[in-house]
């Protein structure tokens, strides 16, 4: 008899366990009490610490992570690192075990586009002390159900030696968002740490907690509505089936390339009323706001206002809330590789059209852009990217100049009126066609100690302005 069927046959036993009764020997796994389960499973958990370095300072970041294999590979949630930060600015990765202040060296491996996970690998001497989370996978474990008990682990901060602690609750809700996601009745552990059932089997991985609505009463305010997010602990987790198949997606390179690309902007879901109006029963649909210039979608004939009703011939499923279906499509794209085909069925002017898109590799994104900080001038510029033209509503042919990425407060650039995201099109009256031209011009200005000022033509919100930066 498989373990799964034993489970199903023994509902009474489970109730007993809840009451804290330790079962008889012979069912050793289930019999082990929670303190022992906790002590073992803590060995899959770590805290990863690193620095993000910017123009002026370094910001330390510490996030819990989970070990996934014998090579000391650790995954961190997407939110651990701002997606715009270039990899070159991520420094000094270290790994700490729970209850320890001893740092171990680690390297950053990159981000996976589908799961959003960042992968880090710990140095060899730490590896024997780590237990991959897969060790707690019990084949045949049924997916957790509503009202079932689940527990996970919380990790305190560095000042408390990353002390682990125990949290437990019951599943209140399971919903495809579009991945199967469970929400517990209260917090069960730190984000990105593993979740276990009462028997200690791996059943999921914590996500960041959802915001919760509260009414805040005070002497001055009568019940002002606020949303609170517990950033240290989460009550939300991905079910194991949404985690285990993807653990092997370790990026081949630190940039996470290739990134499969469809090239549409603004996929807006239709609500059930609109779907019914369009005679789409029991399914969802997405309006394409823009097919980006030169993108795979545009090449395949996708147009603005097309209503996507099916992918690969399968109608888009209906999710709650409506906008989840946009994430569903994004994941369908991210799960493929450049060169793969994606068949779209769209409604256009009442007709159904089948379009075959050959996915491309996404143009350079912000974290990959070349950039340079000019300390004397007090600002950083980066190359003008594909996405910059999209945001500024200009043709790709108009790509030129550089984008202001950072302005140091009270610096000459700041006093001269430059702001983040300004598009610099001319320097000292000369058009700057390429990044190299702009960098050359700015470097010459920075190096020239006799320079008293320079003038740039910037564009902001579609409006240009001449700005003078005084250096003396």
């Amino acid at each position: 008899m498989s373990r799964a069927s034993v489970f199903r046959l023994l509902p009474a036993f489970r109730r007993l366990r809840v009451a804290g009764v330790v079962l008889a020997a012979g069912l050793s796994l289930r019999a082990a009490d929670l303190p022992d389960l906790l002590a073992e499973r803590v060995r899959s958990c770590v805290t990863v610490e690193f620095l993000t370095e910017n123009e002026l300072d370094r910001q330390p970041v510490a996030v819990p992570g989970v070990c996934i294999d014998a090579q000391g590979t650790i995954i961190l949630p997407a939110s651990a690192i701002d997606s715009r930060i270039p990899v070159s600015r991520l420094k000094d990765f270290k790994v700490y075990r729970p209850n320890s202040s001893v740092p171990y060296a680690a390297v950053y491996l990159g981000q996976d586009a589908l799961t959003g996970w960042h992968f880090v690998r710990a140095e060899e001497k730490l590896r024997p002390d780590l237990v991959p989370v897969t060790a707690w996978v019990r084949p045949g474990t049924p997916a957790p159900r509503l009202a079932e008990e689940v527990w996970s682990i919380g990790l305190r901060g560095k000042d408390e030696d990353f002390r682990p602690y125990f949290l437990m609750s019951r599943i209140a809700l399971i919903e495809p968002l579009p991945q199967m996601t469970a929400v517990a009745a209260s917090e069960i552990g730190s984000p990105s740490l593993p979740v276990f059932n009462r028997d200690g089997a791996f059943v999921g991985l914590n996500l960041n907690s959802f915001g919760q609505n509260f009414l805040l009463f005070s002497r001055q305010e009568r019940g002002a509505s606020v949303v609170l997010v517990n950033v240290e602990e989460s009550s939300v987790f991905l079910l194991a089936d949404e985690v285990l198949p993807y653990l092997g997606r370790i990026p081949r390179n630190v940039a996470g390339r290739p990134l499969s690309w469809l090239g549409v902007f603004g996929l807006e879901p239709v609500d059930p009323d609109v779907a019914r109006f369009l005679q789409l029963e029991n399914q969802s649909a997405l309006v394409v706001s823009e097919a980006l210039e030169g993108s795979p979608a545009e090449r395949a004939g996708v147009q603005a206002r097309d209503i996507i009703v099916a992918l690969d011939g399968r109608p888009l499923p209906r999710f709650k809330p409506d906008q989840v279906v946009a994430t569903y499509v994004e994941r369908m794209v991210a799960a493929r590789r450049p060169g793969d085909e994606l068949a779209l069925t769209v409604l256009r002017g009442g007709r159904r059209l089948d379009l075959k898109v050959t996915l491309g590799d996404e143009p350079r994104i912000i974290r990959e852009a070349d950039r340079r900080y000019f300390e004397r001038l007090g600002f950083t510029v980066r190359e003008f990217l594909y996405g910059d033209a999209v945001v500024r509503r200009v043709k790709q042919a108009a790509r030129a100049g550089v984008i202001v990425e950072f302005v140091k407060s009270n610096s000459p650039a700041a006093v001269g009126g430059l702001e983040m995201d300004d598009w610099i099109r001319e320097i000292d009256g000369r058009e700057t066609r390429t990044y190299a031209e702009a960098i050359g011009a700015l470097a010459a200005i920075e190096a020239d100690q006799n320079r008293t000022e320079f003038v740039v033509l910037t564009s902001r919100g579609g409006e240009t302005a001449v700005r003078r930066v005084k250096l003396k």
Partner: protein
Amino acid sequence: MKPATLNESRARSIIRAAAVLVLAPWLAPAPAGAAMSSGFNRLLEAVVRIDVREVTFEAGARRFVAGVGSGVILSREGLVLTNAHVASPHAVEISITLPSLERVDAQLVGWDHWTDLALIRLNLDEVRRRGLTFQPATFGDSDALYAGQTVYAVGTPYGLTRTVTRGIISNNRRYFEDNEGVRGYETGAFNTWLQTDAAINPGNSGGPLVTEDGRVVGINSRGFFGADNLGFAIPSNTARRIVDGLVEHGSITRSYIGLVPGTLQDLEHFYALALNTGLLINSVDPGSPAARAGLRGGDILLAVNGHKVDGRFPEQLPPIQNMIASLPVASTVRLTLKRGSQTLEVPVVTEKLESRVGEEWAFEKWGLGVRKVSRAYARENQLDDDTGVIVLGVQAGYPARVAGLAAGDIVTKINQQPITDLAMLKAAYERFAAKPETVLVEALRDRRISLYVLKP
């Protein structure tokens, strides 16, 4: 911070009035000395209080709001000058309280939000029937004003009729432009303002700024809230020009070429210009006549139809803008430009200046208040064209809100038809009102296209 306009809702005015009355005994100023001139006393007989009820569409329905302002009688024909933000085409009821405290109805003759001026006309039949009398004011020369000159503001601050405050001209050529300064309409591009420290409060709007002999030299209009007596008035010489145009045509027509000027102050050296030459073109509106003619941000405008321009300082910009605006619509203007080391002659064909604020309306059974997208709004927001209407507001529990539309959305299509003008939307609404059927709506929010259904 930009100075705010100064009309006043009645509810607020009562509260503020009470507070001011309590404080009055301690704050009473020292007496001015000798009696006021006869001219000044005559002027007091020409200042009126204006009560306006106007329609708004922000609630997703027609709603009415009341405001109080001031005005000055211009002529025996009963013309009264006030601010555009006091009396606008949104006014549905205007009543004027004469110095004799008698109330008379009035009608809007025309308005010009660019200079924040409006002209209304007393109902003369009613005036005669009731045997009422009034005095027109005498105008002075605002160009002759000097900083430090004593002036008085007369009006109805916080609803307090016939209030006189005293101050000096603090600056006689103040520049500020406000893209949404008059109820969301643009103002200040074509005139400079008089700045005074005569106390100007909400409700003073539209009242006169006068010299000691009672001549009107300005129309009080704006102030910095929270500042001590930083008030602004439209110079009377500007007002006289606008009044003539409004009397003749009911509106002021201006030309537009799409230049956004900047000041050349401290930049002449960089552009290798002689002193007192040129106007910096900071930006060129996309799709405008200037853009089509090839003008670019960073060009220097040296002359307009051969007339040299000098735009070193901010207060020099309005006269240059006004010179361009005063050209006939659809005429060719010859611009002399400096670009790098080149000097160019560029012909540009003017078009009619339009406000960013389009026509407004409410579709009450939908619970939807809208404003037509104007060409200026489309340019400002980088829209493809002026198709569509902007949602001003939706009413809870009504179809538009239930469908998910929200203020700021741009409704572009209805039942698959692009909304090219408001009449087209009104026709669709009439069909819905006559025979309620589900309507499919397409709208933009931050460039994202969504579909909605309005259900009966």
